[in-house]
């Protein structure tokens, strides 16, 4: 995930927490391995190798691409998983300068989901094009990990590099009953007691979560108690080119090939799932100066830093 991944667990048993940690870690590595564009054995690399011809995808990859397609439709094309090729023109390393318009325009024909043949579960990627699930993968991993630990007893906070989701206990009256292999003596006669449920348990309190300022580490611009739902942040605080007094953020508009002017440095959104929070944060950034009004209009709790 190219960032620290963390699980906070509040369980009755240490063993449950350890199990949760193992589940989350395994799932994070599984998704990283499967969808990373940097790995030769990933599904993404496989799709790239098959450029120009049809390839049949597994169920999970199909669902991820369908999701990406739906967001592309919903965002009028401003979110596009084929926009990664623009990185060939743009470098956000310190000291870089913005590319010239010509080199950007040369790449634009290789950008655009509408150019991809996608007939689930089959896909055909035109020559020269790329797909990049980096904009969804981490949030998807958070949600998947959350779903997994959600089946265990306890309350959890899954945090993959600042994209996080709180998992409340399975239900408010979660039992604390221990696993019992043996409860009745033989020969105890007709006396026996039915005892299969535990006592009621207090519902979980929230996790204290700080929304950090992109301008300085360890400075919280907001503190909240998260009991459920997810937070995701999109921004360019550490990946931007400043040239001629203009700041070029790393979120590029796939329709122009250029960073959206007037975008906030960072947008943090609260939504039921991490993929929703992440998508809304990214789409808000792409609204440029209208990010806040977009978020207000959509009704998501949010924190913008300009």
């Amino acid at each position, binding site marked *: 995930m190219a960032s620290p991944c963390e699980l906070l667990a509040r369980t009755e048993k240490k063993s449950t927490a350890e199990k949760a940690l193992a*589940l989350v870690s395994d799932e994070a590595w599984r998704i990283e391995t499967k969808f990373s564009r940097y790995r030769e054995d990933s599904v993404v690399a496989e799709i790239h190798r098959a450029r120009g011809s049809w390839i049949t995808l597994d169920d999970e990859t199909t669902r991820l691409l369908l999701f990406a397609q739906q967001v592309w439709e*919903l965002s009028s094309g401003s979110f596009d998983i084929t926009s990664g090729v623009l990185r060939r023109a743009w470098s956000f390393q310190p000291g870089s300068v913005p590319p010239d318009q010509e080199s950007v325009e040369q790449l634009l024909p290789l950008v655009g989901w*509408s150019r991809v043949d*996608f007939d689930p579960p089959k896909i055909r990627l035109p020559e020269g094009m790329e797909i990049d699930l980096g904009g969804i993968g981490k949030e998807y991993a958070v949600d998947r990990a959350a779903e997994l630990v959600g089946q265990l007893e306890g309350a959890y906070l899954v945090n993959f590099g600042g994209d996080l989701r709180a998992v409340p206990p399975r239900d408010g009256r979660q039992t604390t009953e221990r*696993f019992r292999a*043996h409860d009745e*003596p033989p020969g105890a006669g007709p006396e026996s007691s039915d005892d299969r449920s535990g*006592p009621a348990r207090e519902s979980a309190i929230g996790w204290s979560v700080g929304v950090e300022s992109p301008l300085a580490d360890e400075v919280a611009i907001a503190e909240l108690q998260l009991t459920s739902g997810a937070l995701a942040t999109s921004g360019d605080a550490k990946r931007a080119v400043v040239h001629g007094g203009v700041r070029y953020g790393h979120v590029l508009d796939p329709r122009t090939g250029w960073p959206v002017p007037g975008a906030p440095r960072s947008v943090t959104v609260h939504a*039921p799932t991490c993929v929703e929070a992440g998508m*809304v944060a990214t789409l808000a950034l792409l609204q440029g100066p209208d990010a806040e009004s977009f978020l207000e209009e959509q009704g998501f709790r949010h924190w913008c830093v300009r």
Partner: protein
Amino acid sequence: MQLSPRKNPASLRTGLALAAASLLGPRAASATQDVEVGSGVLVYTEPGRVSALEAVALVTRNFWDKHKLSLRVVYDTLTGASPNGAVASRSPQTFTRPSGSGSYSVKAGETPLDDTFKDTRFAGSLTYDRPFLSAGRWNVGVQGSGEHDYLSIGASTGITREFDRKNTTLSLGVSGSRDEISPEGGVPTAFAEMGAATGRHEDDFVRGDDGEYDENGGEGSNDTKTVVDGVIGLTQVVSRTTLVRFNYSISNSSGYLNDPYKFLSVLYGPDDPSAGDPVTYLYEKRPDTHTKHSLYAQAKKRIASTTLDLSYRFLWDDWGITSHTAELKHRVPIGETVYFEPHVRLYEQTAADFYRTYLVSGDALPAEASADPRLGPMTAITVGNRVGGFHVGEQEFAVALEYYHQFLKDGDQPAYGSLEGLDLSEDMGAFMFRISHGWEP
């Protein structure tokens, strides 16, 4: 496929929620590969009487989405002496062993105990539990157990359904079993005399079509019993700290319901010079059907960090037995996971209609009779404490120690003649020590 983006910002939130739901919703079956392992050992001892050791192992495999398969295996072994139903006497008594070979003697004044109990039992059950419709679960299982003189096979199924945001749970279950009893020395004829005269060892007599045994000492070497149970239960969350549960259960048994190792003393009548002394011993006879009903109520309440658990059961049957069981448990945490759970249980039962302490020579034989103390009037108390929540790595342990005391009450029949001054309903005490273990690797 050529798509063109459409602009429809108002529906973005909904559209995104739907997209996320289809991405995450039909969640590719959970990757949880849960295995839960549990085991327990129980040591049960009635000083001077029976000792038992029981070991249980349970493995549960969780798979797909909330499907569970559980395998439970039980091994137990029982040795020692248990009341044979005869009453104490002023003179020593001699009884034929159930196998028909040999005998054992009981000293004057002592409650006759059959010391030949030695049994090993294996039992196993396999249960499959899965989601059913929405908010419901369905389970189905098979079980079997075997000992040298007893074989049982059965099946069960049940459903549960949650209502009102899981605050109410309704459950229904049925189970049935078919048991085969093949006592040592064959099935004794009801009311036959103990020993050679009873006709034990005459194996090949066949039971008539009417299901009755040939009265002339005939017997089958084995017999069967059928049990059908049903239960309906309701669990209700009353508040964040209180939960109540009710259930009603019914159980019907039919077939061979006698205890093939229990006798009744036949005594000289009050007017006889040997009044109260044994004449002979007869095998018992119980009805061949038995229907039991039980009502159970339980309340659990969280008080501060402790949990109080109070339950009551009322049981009645068509044999004339009614019983009341009340139990109180209090779980008190000490430390992070360790807890104490002291408990006390009180039990009282009335005798079965056909319960007889003894029979009197010369009186007409009743239709049925048994002197099994378990069918007699009694009260009992159990006190104990359980300490659990110990962790060693992923393993969790609990230990419990209990003491059970049974106060047998005298039946309706008076002690007369030589019986006077003898303890015809001797109390019994038992200790239970249990260690249990759970593991979720």
